[in-house]
């Protein structure tokens, strides 16, 4: 059995755990990161790739604003551009009621620097004439964008390793406990890591560890269904979303259109598959939204395993039961953009004992038995966080 003593142990090498490791290393803190598969290979690596602030609940916007700054420095952080582009994010409405909700969102979120512009149907026809006729308007956020999660997420773990993080891939944590002095994290009987701090960044599998420390949470797994077309001539110059959820689409520089909507099915706790039941609807919706796709071909469907919380907000912050334990999971299908800021906050919490960004809405205590009443959220806000990107 290999034994390692360190300052911070991190369970999970997705964009959250990887960025936490990176920011801790930039502060000179010793880190051991344990990843069951390969860094950035799970939800962090197979999601839609939306890098957007627009559409998030207001409690996430400080986090998203900080993340936006970090994304602006991506090459300096992780050494690659990850195909990140500030294409703009256009959130569409297919009814006047939905357009009114977009207008209300713009009004409620002034001051967060998103510069939202409401476009009516005529404006959409002028600027985005390739959209299908069902749209009545939209909200345009000029500086939101998208990136390639397959490149970006693994790069965080790699950047952390380059700065001296001890990154162990193919290592599945089988137990995490605290012996009164320090955390003991074991991977079978091959590896034991003993640390002063523990970061639970285990994504869809994090609930298990939270429960092990006496703070169970109602985390579930969701499987956003994705598809990608063959390369097509470039026509889509923004990332698209829909008020109310249901479909989102972007076109990469090489021409493939990446489109998501609906759900896949769980194959086992570790994997999901694009269930056949929803493939037809996704394709039909894609063609209605983007009629130019009617001559194009799908070359692949896929899905992933993402941790989801009932209010679609992450669990982020100190443990309620064990000092030195910090949780960061349950990003509910919207973790790609905020991931780097979450990692930075975790480093902040470890080193400075506090977060400079408000995270009270994400405290794990909201799932403590006495807090059940406080977990209810107004419908309007929850609907806005339902969509994935």
């Amino acid at each position, binding site marked *: 059995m290999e034994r390692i003593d360190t300052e911070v142990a991190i369970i999970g090498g997705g964009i959250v755990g990887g960025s936490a490791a990176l920011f801790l290393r930039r502060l000179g803190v010793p880190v051991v990161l344990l990843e069951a598969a390969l860094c950035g290979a799970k939800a962090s690596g197979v999601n839609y790739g939306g890098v957007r602030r627009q559409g998030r609940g207001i409690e996430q916007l400080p986090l998203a604003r900080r993340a936006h700054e970090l994304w602006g420095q991506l090459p300096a952080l992780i050494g690659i551009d990850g195909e990140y582009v500030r294409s703009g994010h256009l959130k569409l409405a297919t009814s006047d009621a*939905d357009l009114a909700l977009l207008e209300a969102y713009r009004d409620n979120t002034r001051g967060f620097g998103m510069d939202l512009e409401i476009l009516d149907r005529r404006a959409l026809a*002028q600027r985005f004439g390739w959209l299908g006729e069902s749209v009545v308007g939209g909200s345009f956020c000029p500086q939101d964008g998208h990136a390639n999660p397959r490149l970006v997420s693994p790069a965080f773990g790699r950047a952390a390793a380059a700065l001296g993080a001890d990154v162990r891939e193919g290592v599945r944590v089988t137990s995490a406990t605290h012996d009164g002095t320090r955390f003991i994290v074991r991977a079978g009987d091959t590896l034991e890591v003993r640390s002063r701090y523990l970061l639970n960044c285990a994504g869809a599998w994090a609930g298990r560890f939270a429960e092990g420390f006496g703070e169970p949470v109602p985390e579930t797994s969701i499987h956003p269904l994705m598809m990608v077309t063959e390369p097509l001539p470039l026509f889509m110059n923004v990332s698209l979303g829909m008020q109310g959820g249901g479909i989102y689409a972007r076109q990469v520089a090489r021409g493939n259109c990446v489109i998501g909507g609906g759900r896949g099915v769980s194959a086992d706790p570790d994997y999901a598959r694009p269930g056949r039941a929803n493939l037809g609807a996704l394709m039909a919706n894609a063609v209605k939204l983007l009629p130019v796709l009617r001559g194009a071909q799908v070359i692949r469907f896929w899905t992933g395993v993402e941790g989801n919380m009932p209010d679609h907000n992450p669990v982020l912050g100190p443990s309620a039961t064990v000092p030195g334990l910090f949780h960061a999971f349950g990003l509910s299908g919207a973790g790609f953009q905020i991931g780097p800021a979450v990692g930075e906050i975790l480093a902040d919490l470890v080193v400075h004992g506090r977060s400079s960004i408000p995270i009270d809405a994400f405290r794990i205590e909201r799932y403590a038995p006495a807090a059940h009443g406080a977990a209810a959220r107004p419908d309007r806000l929850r609907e806005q966080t339902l969509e994935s990107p």
Partner: protein
Amino acid sequence: MAILKRLAETGRPALTFTFDGQTCTALAGDTVLTAVLTQAERLRTSEFGGGPRAGFCMMGACQDCWVQLETGERVRACSTYIEPGMRLQSAALAPASTPGTLAAASAPGTLTAAAWPEDDAS
């Protein structure tokens, strides 16, 4: 110049089709690949690198021989038979939109924004 050379089966009825606007002749029973490559040197141009492509496996596996019809559909040239009047083009179809109008769907219908219950806890 042409890639393919006819060695046999030349006694078949002729038909005409167009490729990049040019009228061409093929024989009934030709695949689209045969029809094009018995008179041209490429089926399409690679999206990456811009090189010419003329198919590869001839049996529907390599997916190299997809050709654009002017109507918008795409056909796999090695496994699709040429039809009289078929209008092929070597370039992938760019979206044609009239400025100031939204794109018409081929079949009317409303976009189902919330086509599925997004999660169980709604």
